[in-house]
């Protein structure tokens, strides 16, 4: 077992004056203010690969395109969802189901970028991902204050492909966690905490000559090491410890990586993280769609519903927007391998919390599930809706390196019927 710093150790260190005398005490002491006033937050449940709308929240009853999937009733009269989602059916009164999402992008990487940033990829600008937008805007409102933990966390993602903070700068890049059950990389000092602080102090003393010659570079470095140290010595690090959660809560979320991710998302938001993305892989069901989606839903349904209930119980749902979506939907026509192919023309997304009124359905498609026939929601519309929920101004502009202003959201109109 590697050394681990807890609050008690810290207090002991501080009272012994060790850290203080070494100049790093203020870093540790800064935790007094560690509680970022818990405000708005957002959790994105990302269904990587493009989930089938028909086997999730837009079942197609009475048409051959619906395939073998049956619909079930929910706790809201008139709203029916696919049979694989019995737990979500019990919390449908918190859900806003958008059945009229529409885009034109059907390639995984490009659509993933589009649904994370609101923009199509373009070599001249790296658009910031939704998490970086939300976190930086919320921080700007709080006078630049962020929590001890990184403001944006992505759980179960696969590297940087989904885009990062882009032109907002590296400090808003998602902090990547391979799995919720595994400690975040390199966050435990390899030596006793006291010695760790002494090392930092030694580093700073040895840095004197460099700092005299290059004050700016030295100051940047110092600030970075202070932020990193503040994070790993923060009592908020206990948010990563899922074992601290009562057994009945863990039981409610269920088993598996995605369930652990949802539970961790709630803990992180409680500890001041502004945006958490939890990734569920495997939705690219070109073959054997029906049994594969049933199995995937078996891993996702329960934790999603548990997350909403849990947030609600803790009084956090009103301020926390939860988004369930993937990069596109799947073809109404079932292919010869019992699969469904990519289909951006009409698909779905689900929103809950963050001021969004539950128990509603927005938009619909024709009976064959092909064309959107009521209230089409474009990707910019959806992003404008996220902004409305987070009370962020979507017209705020950031500068691309070429000096071109880029709006947070490229036009679009929030779906007012959701609020």
């Amino acid at each position, binding site marked *: 077992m590697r050394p681990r710093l807890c609050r008690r150790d810290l207090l002991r260190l501080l009272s012994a004056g060790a850290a203080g005398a070494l100049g790093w005490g203020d870093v540790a002491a800064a935790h007094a203010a560690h509680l970022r006033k818990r405000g708005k937050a957002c959790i994105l449940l990302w269904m*990587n*690969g493009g989930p089938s709308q028909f086997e999730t929240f837009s079942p197609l009853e009475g048409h051959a395109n619906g395939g073998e999937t049956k619909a079930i009733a929910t706790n809201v009269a008139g709203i029916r969802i696919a049979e694989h989602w019995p737990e979500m059916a019990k919390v449908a009164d918190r859900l806003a189901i958008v059945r009229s999402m529409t885009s*034109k992008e*059907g390639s*995984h*990487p*490009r659509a993933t*970028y589009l649904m994370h940033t609101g923009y*199509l*990829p*373009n*070599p*001249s600008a*790296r658009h910031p991902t939704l998490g970086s937008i939300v976190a930086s805007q919320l921080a700007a409102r709080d006078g630049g204050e962020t929590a001890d933990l*990184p403001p944006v966390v992505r759980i179960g993602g*696969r*590297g940087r*492909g989904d885009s990062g903070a882009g032109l907002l700068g*590296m*400090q808003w890049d998602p*902090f*990547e966690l*391979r799995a919720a059950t*595994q400690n975040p*990389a*390199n*966050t*435990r*000092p*390899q*030596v006793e905490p006291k*010695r760790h602080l002494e*090392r930092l102090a*030694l*580093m700073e*003393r*040895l*840095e*004197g*000559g*460099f700092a005299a*010659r*290059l*004050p*700016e*570079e*030295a100051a*940047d*470095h*110092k600030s*970075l*090491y202070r*932020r*990193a140290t503040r*994070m*790993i010595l923060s009592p908020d690090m206990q948010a990563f410890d899922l074992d601290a959660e009562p057994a009945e809560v863990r039981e409610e979320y269920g088993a598996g990586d995605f369930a652990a991710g949802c539970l961790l998302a709630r803990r992180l938001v409680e500890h001041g993280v502004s945006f958490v993305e939890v990734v569920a*892989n495997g939705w690219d069901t070109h073959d054997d769609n029906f049994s594969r989606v049933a199995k995937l839903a078996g891993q996702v349904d329960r934790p999603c519903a548990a997350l909403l209930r849990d947030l609600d119980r803790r009084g956090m749902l009103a301020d926390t927007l939860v988004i369930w979506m993937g990069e596109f939907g799947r073809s109404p026509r079932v292919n010869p391998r019992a699969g469904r192919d990519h289909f951006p023309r009409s698909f779905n997304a689900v929103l809950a919390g963050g001021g969004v009124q539950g128990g509603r359905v927005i938009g619909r498609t024709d009976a064959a599930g092909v064309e959107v026939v009521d209230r089409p929601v474009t990707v910019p519309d959806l992003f404008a809706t996220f902004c409305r929920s987070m009370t962020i101004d979507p017209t705020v502009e950031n500068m691309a*390196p*070429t*000096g071109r202003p880029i709006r947070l959201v490229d036009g679009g109109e929030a779906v007012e019927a959701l609020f």
Partner: protein
Amino acid sequence: METPRRLLCVCLIAAGMAAAAAAAPAERCDDATFLRRASLDLIGRQPTPAEIDAFAADQDPAKRSATVDRLLADPAWATTWARYFRDVILYRRTDDRAALMSRPLEEYLTERLAADARWDEIARGFITAAGSPAEHGETAIIMAQMGETSDIAAEVSRIFLGIQIQCAQCHNHFTDRWKRTEFHEFAAFFPRIAIRRADGLGPERFEVVSHDFEPRARKGRRKPPVDNPRRGDLEHEMPDLEDPSRPGSVMQPRFFLTGQSLPLGTSDLERRGAIADWITADDNTWFSRALVNRLWAELVGAGFYRGIDDIGPDREVESPAILDDLAMAFVASGHDLRALFRTIMTGDAYQRAARSRSSPDRAGFAANCPQRLRSDQIFTQVLAAVGVDESRLVGPGGQPRRGAGLPPEMRDNPPEEMPAGGRRQFNVPRAMFSQVFGYDPSLPREEIVGSIPQALLLMNSQPLARAIDGDRRFTALGRLLAEERDDREVVAQLYLRSLARRPTPDEVATCLDHVRTSPSRADGFEDVFWALINSAEFVNRN
């Protein structure tokens, strides 16, 4: 050696002019700083303790230019700059599958640079590329944009001309002279590039081909891309802004800088051959200026223009006379890359002491400017400091060896859709390290700041902690402590290993003081080693 000498004269004059413009130029940097700077810049690593001692002992007044020559002749020069240009291209990829190109591209560029390929030849190779990406690294710009006509045009202009013409894609440029039609006429050199996709998963499943015959996309097999709904046509069309669903205007290929044009109907390879000729022509000053500005920015620390790849006739330029002289000399040398490095690095501006990036007394190239090291440089440097050979980290076939002890985030999976063969190139420790430390080298350098995961890796990574363990006999520190009884000399050796210089008397005193108050000699020196590897000096080239 006629040309380089000529270049050198030009540069000395140029540097003199720069000095005149600046209020108070910084003094010439000391020998140790110069050697570390030049070694990192040219061969991507710090000098070894033996190289440092030899350089210090060398009494030859011309030893700096001799060192530049020696480093330019080192095979690592080609590798270092191949990796640099690999990043220039691949950091702007709009399709993550292009990450599969990483290794073929690096190998291609290494081979070309080692073979003394001229910059115009390299540019031509990228612009006219065809074939399988696995065997033709020069298809990287096309692959990075997955064959999208407008994006390829934008990247060719950005990388080889330093002109961000794509800003005129949707409207006439606000601040520059370029008209919307000029962008689309330029894009009209590239509409016939197609990427054929075969079964399979690695880079070998793609092929860059010419699409010179109708009809292809008309059969409705391919979904036309949103930004150019008529791709698959033989001619590029400028979309109708009022109604993008209507057919656009067919554009004739025409080069916005010179007005040279081709008739509609010209074949793909003829089009690309012609635009390659016109872009790389000796009298196209933007081709030479773009590279001179880029290398000057990398080596002196800041470019003649604010943006490293955003230059052009409507951009503010500093010391234009030096830029023009260098660009002309570069053309006269036959676009000789090594000669350009030599010219810049033997000049005064390069050899001045460093001053902070935003410091006002750096204006007019009065000082060199510190650069945050690129991922490849830091990785090489970490291994060298702790005395681990990279080949020991990588088993046959590029797989990390068991027990190589990578930090967990360095075992990160590459993006989805990566087959086993393609994944392999991401699993090598160097590539995984770059997922934490990499940055786009075309970004303004003031935006490149360290990230928390970077600091955490250097502070807390378990393998690194093991590698600096002073109690183990097989670590560099363990051996040093066993063989060297003189603590002052241990301090000196740790400084040479990690910062490529000897410590000052104050630094020695601080270190010895720390060691004395530590529970053990090994612990004390571990702390010193840790502090040096985590210092700002370690990750910056000053």
